[in-house]
């Protein structure tokens, strides 16, 4: 939240960015594969600029507060109510938004008529009841990822969504992150060739705990660490990354094998602090997924391997196979001009051939400066798409336009996370259950 002063411009810049992407040759067709972005344009922002989405926050812990800070910078959003059943969290939020009404029971909040949409940032086990109750109460809903804590809960939400005319968003923020959008466009245009593998990892060196004022609050505050309220590293971290794999391949994995253990943080927690899994698509492409929270050397990366190149979406960098390092001299020439200098650049030589690999050279996905998430924050970082997806939701609260593919992507990613947990629990290869396949999923 450090650079909140320029959030608005960042947000508008994403809208402009999307508009520009649609203008390049073939861009419209490629953007057509990201239909959730189609309404996120500068023109749409202009249309709703005199209106306000009246939103309420259910859950005002760290992530809820993060959303509040983002909402302050969304001109078409107004926070009218706050709800949390943990008094210190509610108090912290109320101090930020003194004019908002406060609730300790979300069902009471849902009765209020002056609320267009709710933003749910609760422990995972509360997602399904809160989403379903909110939709039933006629509210538009924005819910944190993952979708829910079981296959059936995900399916219940998905089914309810088919019946409702309300908007439902899950915070799959990578879908609104410029690096990912542009990177995916590059992947789908064939830049790195056929996708042959996905390597995803998320490493931290932190106990994943929050301080607990008194012991009886342990499970309430550290809900992430217990199976009754959390699905561990898979839903909290892997959900974003598995979504990226599906986005890149256009498929959903058919099966998964894996192992999960508590390697280091033997402090009474239940969920694994170390997971290693292999997901397999029908074309035999595999995702290797690894997360460990007792060593942060490797940080976080979403790596898509192509026959012709490698995309590091989290870092916003790609590398080409068989690319000979050798400067074209242009960078030097540009620097020279910038410094008002005129000297020779080393450029001439026999034909430069891409087939003669020496090393890999990093190329930025985006021009100019951009933000990179090192993966270490437990709350969220600036400009990772979380603000933009919330902005899009607030826009949708006004227009009533459903966000295309967002629920489906959340469903696909979350169910794969749950499948992974099942594989680790049962120590065998688990196939995606037929009864939970939805038409959107391609296997």
């Amino acid at each position, binding site marked *: 939240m450090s650079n909140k002063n320029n959030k608005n411009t960042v947000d508008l810049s994403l809208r402009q960015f999307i508009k520009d992407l649609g203008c390049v*040759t073939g861009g419209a067709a490629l953007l057509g594969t990201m239909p959730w972005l189609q309404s996120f344009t500068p023109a749409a922002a202009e249309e709703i600029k005199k209106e306000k989405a009246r939103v309420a926050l259910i859950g005002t812990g760290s992530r809820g507060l993060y959303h509040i800070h983002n909402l302050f910078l969304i001109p078409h959003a107004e926070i009218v109510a706050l709800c949390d059943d943990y008094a210190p969290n509610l108090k912290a939020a109320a101090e930020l938004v003194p004019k908002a009404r406060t609730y300790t029971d979300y069902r009471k909040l849902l009765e209020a008529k002056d609320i267009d949409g709710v933003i749910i940032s609760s422990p995972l086990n509360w997602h399904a009841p809160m989403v379903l109750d909110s939709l039933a109460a006629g509210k538009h809903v924005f819910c944190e990822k993952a979708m829910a804590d079981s296959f059936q809960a995900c399916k219940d939400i998905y089914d309810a969504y088919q019946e409702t005319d309300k908007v439902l968003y899950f915070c799959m923020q990578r879908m609104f992150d410029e690096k990912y959008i542009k990177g995916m466009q590059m992947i789908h245009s064939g830049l790195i060739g056929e996708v042959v593998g996905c390597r995803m990892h998320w490493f931290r060196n932190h106990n994943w705990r929050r301080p607990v004022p008194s012991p009886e609050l342990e499970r309430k505050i550290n809900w992430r660490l217990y199976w009754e309220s959390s699905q561990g590293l898979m839903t909290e971290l892997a959900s974003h990354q598995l979504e990226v794999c599906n986005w890149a391949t256009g498929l959903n994995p058919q099966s998964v094998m894996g192992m999960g253990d508590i390697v280091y943080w033997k402090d009474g927690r239940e969920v694994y602090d170390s997971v290693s899994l292999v997901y397999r698509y029908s074309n035999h492409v595999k995702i290797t997924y690894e997360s460990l929270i007792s060593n942060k050397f490797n940080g976080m990366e979403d790596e898509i391997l192509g026959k012709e190149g490698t995309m590091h979406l989290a870092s916003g960098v790609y590398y080409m196979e068989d690319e000979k390092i050798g400067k074209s001299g242009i960078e030097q020439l540009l620097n020279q001009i910038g410094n008002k200098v005129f000297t020779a650049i080393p450029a*001439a030589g*026999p034909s430069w*051939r891409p087939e003669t690999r020496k090393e890999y050279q990093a190329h930025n996905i985006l021009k100019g400066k951009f933000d990179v998430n090192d993966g270490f924050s437990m709350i969220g970082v600036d400009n990772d798409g979380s603000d933009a997806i919330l902005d899009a939701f607030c826009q949708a609260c006004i227009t009533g336009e459903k966000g295309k593919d967002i629920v489906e992507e959340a469903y696909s990613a979350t169910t794969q996370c749950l499948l992974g947990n099942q594989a680790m629990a049962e120590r065998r290869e688990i196939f995606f259950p037929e009864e939970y396949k939805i038409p959107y999923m391609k296997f």
Partner: protein
Amino acid sequence: MLEATSRYIAEEKVFHGFIPRIMGTRFDILLAGVSSALGESCWALTVTELQRLDKILNRFDATSEVSRLNGNAFKKPFAVSREFWDILNDCKKYHQMTSGIFDVTLKDFSLVKFHEETKSVSFSISDLSLDFGGYAKGYALEKIKGILKKQNIGHAFINFGNSSIMGIGKHPYGNGWKVNINNPFHPEKVLGEFTLKNAVLTTSGNTPDYTEHIIHPFSGKRNNEKKCICVITNNACDGEVLSTSLIASHQDKQKIITKFEPAKIIEYKFVN
């Protein structure tokens, strides 16, 4: 083709366009003293033109016109597009100007039969294919020169895979565009410096990891000498053909050179 990218540096009014791979190599263009809009429009035309030419001349693309010609011309005459017909005739002209050294068949150009009435081409033997490696970049550069002229862009620097570099007008702070050639076997060693002003520098030679790609058409022998030849010409096609021919030729260099408009030619030989 891979993703084309571009950027505009407003303070210097400089536009840079880049294609990581086209016609088997990479392409960089720098336009100086242009507005962002002019840069963008010129770049769009350039990308379209390069893609179009790639579709004619890239033999590694199975659907290109040259690939279709290579695959079909032995069975019966293959009708070619007007532009490709002109290109083939241009290559025929260069074949004659270089006493047969410049040869897109890399074998025997007389095996290519031209059928004027139908604008079609046939091969006398099955084992023949055309390779425009020593021509296409020059042809493309001339086309781009035409685009720049039409767009009234007076100052540009184009690096087409290092081996073909065109300087038009001048550097914002100089009287032309200066480039160095470095020893491909010892990249830290500068061999020479050239200033290009409305001229093209074309370089042919071997590199440490790409040797013996130059074939003498008469003997069929591969040339693995450690040398390179730099040619500065006004016309990019002339430059391509001259440098390709001179690196392949052992004798008669002077005879070839006199057929072309005056050009600056420098040959570098490396001991190691």
